[in-house]
């Protein structure tokens, strides 16, 4: 049996989500964790593994609500394996690590979580408060990678990804109207999600009227910082009789990193690391892109999602613009319903894990008002941009 088939996702959980909740971030984290444990029909005594991204505390403010050790202690877990850290194949790399630990036999039920409080931590300071160096740090240093980008006023992912989008526009004729469909689609879906942050209707004209942040990216191409926690349980397939409901099955994962791992030196800057992670994932399954009925794919910036669409083979390389035209293909009744919870663009920057959460919700048919009427049997959850990418192909039991 291939390793992925030894693992299932047995439960998911999510705390309250808000622009600024001003609540203890560990409490938010634990709300999500406890909900996931109960959703699986388990207790804290059953949990013998932890996997989290990005590990505890640190910079930028609000980027991590809790680390593995804090959660282990708070829930008094007895662990056979645990892991927390940022240097991995994207946020969902933590969940893929958990799958490997379960397949390897080091743990049976791994609690995976990711929590943020960037909304509260930024306060009124906005994004400036989370820029490299931070607006309140005394001695800014343009060293390491930053030495080659910060002197030119490119301090963060916004201008880096803007430059990639511009290259895609140049090579393939992609237009702002086409890219904007990702934001419009997210807003449309967010209106059906009770935890979403922005639910006011948005038209493509609203999108085009929003101010340019770093051309060609506009305000509505950028996700919204928030507070909240998301969790899921990765369990061994042999425990299915112990679980509360038929779990979501892990069919294949992708984690590859090829070429130069950077935001500016990758061999083809009209795409990112997901190009290779997706190829690897498809090499590990007999399923095809046309089998996928729902896609939950990272949208820290809308252009990242465009790259995921191409990388996953939902359209050809360079064809995402035409695929997105009018937004029909990614709509709820389209070829590949995309980011059915509203994504990070409209439902908050829960940072990667919310995509896996939503994919499981849709496969379980538990989406409430936002449940796809097609009741999908196969879904993907993908997270990461630039040099980070991790993806899981999931099937209904």
């Amino acid at each position, binding site marked *: 049996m291939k390793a992925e088939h030894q693992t299932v996702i047995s439960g998911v959980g999510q705390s309250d989500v808000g622009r600024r909740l001003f609540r203890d971030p560990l409490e938010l984290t634990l709300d999500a964790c406890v909900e996931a444990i109960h959703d699986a029909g388990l207790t804290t005594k059953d949990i013998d593994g932890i996997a989290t991204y990005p590990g505890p505390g640190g910079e930028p403010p609000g980027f991590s609500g809790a680390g593995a050790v804090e959660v282990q202690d708070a829930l008094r877990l007895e662990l056979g394996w645990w892991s927390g850290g940022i240097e991995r194949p994207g946020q969902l790399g933590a969940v893929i690590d958990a799958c490997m630990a379960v397949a390897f036999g080091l743990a049976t039920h791994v609690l995976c979580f990711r929590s943020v409080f960037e909304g509260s931590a930024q306060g009124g300071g906005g994004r400036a408060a989370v820029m490299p*160096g931070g*607006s309140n740090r005394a001695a800014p240093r*343009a060293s390491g*990678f930053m030495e080659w980008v910060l002197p030119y*006023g490119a301090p963060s992912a916004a201008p880096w990804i*803007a*430059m990639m989008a511009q*290259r895609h526009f140049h090579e393939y004729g992609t237009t702002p109207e086409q890219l904007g469909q990702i934001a419009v689609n997210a807003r449309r879906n967010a209106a059906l999600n009770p935890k979403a942050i922005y639910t006011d209707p948005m038209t493509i004209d609203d999108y085009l009227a929003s*101010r340019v942040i*770093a051309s060609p990216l506009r305000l509505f191409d950028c996700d919204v910082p928030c507070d909240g926690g998301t969790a899921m349980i990765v369990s061994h397939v042999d425990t299915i009789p112990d679980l509360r409901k038929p779990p979501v099955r892990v069919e294949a994962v992708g984690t590859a990193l090829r070429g130069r791992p950077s935001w500016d030196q990758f061999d083809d800057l009209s795409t990112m690391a997901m190009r290779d992670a997706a190829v690897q994932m498809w090499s590990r399954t007999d399923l095809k892109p046309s089998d996928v009925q729902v896609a939950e794919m990272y949208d820290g910036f809308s252009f990242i999602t465009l790259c995921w669409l191409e990388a996953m083979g939902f359209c050809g390389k360079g064809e995402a613009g035409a695929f997105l035209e009018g937004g029909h293909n990614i709509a709820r009744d389209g070829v590949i319903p995309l980011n059915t919870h509203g994504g990070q663009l409209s439902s908050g920057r829960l940072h990667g894990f919310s995509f896996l959460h939503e994919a499981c919700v849709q496969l379980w048919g538990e989406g409430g008002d936002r449940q796809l009427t097609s009741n999908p049997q196969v879904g993907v959850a993908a997270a990461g941009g630039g040099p980070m990418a991790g993806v899981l192909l999931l099937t209904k039991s």
Partner: protein
Amino acid sequence: MAPRFDLPTPDEETAPFWAGVNEDRLLIKHCNACGANHFYPRPFCPTCWSTDVEWCAASGRATLYTWSVVYNNDLPPFNERLPYVAALVDLEEGPRMMTNVVDCPFDELAAEMPLEVVYEQVSDDPFVKLPRFRPARG
């Protein structure tokens, strides 16, 4: 001095690059073993791993790979320069580097356009120049 975010913080390996820029030279690393050029500068050749690498002056000619007109940056001193052009350029010698494009109307920016380096002083104390690029003349 007010905090500013545009000054490079060289280390032992990168100091020659910035010293070169201050003297109007754009230095990249060249491998004497395999002939490859590379950037960012490393103490060994990333192509063949030889340590027989040396600094050499680039021509300063480049083409524009991609760019972004940045309208939003709260960090000083960029917040006083908005909007400006952040860009990735392909040096004639091969390596790609981040820079700014200056002296070019935004609507005339185009991928593959020929550029040439200009050395612009951004600070008196410390004395710091940055390598930026403008549309090639002649």
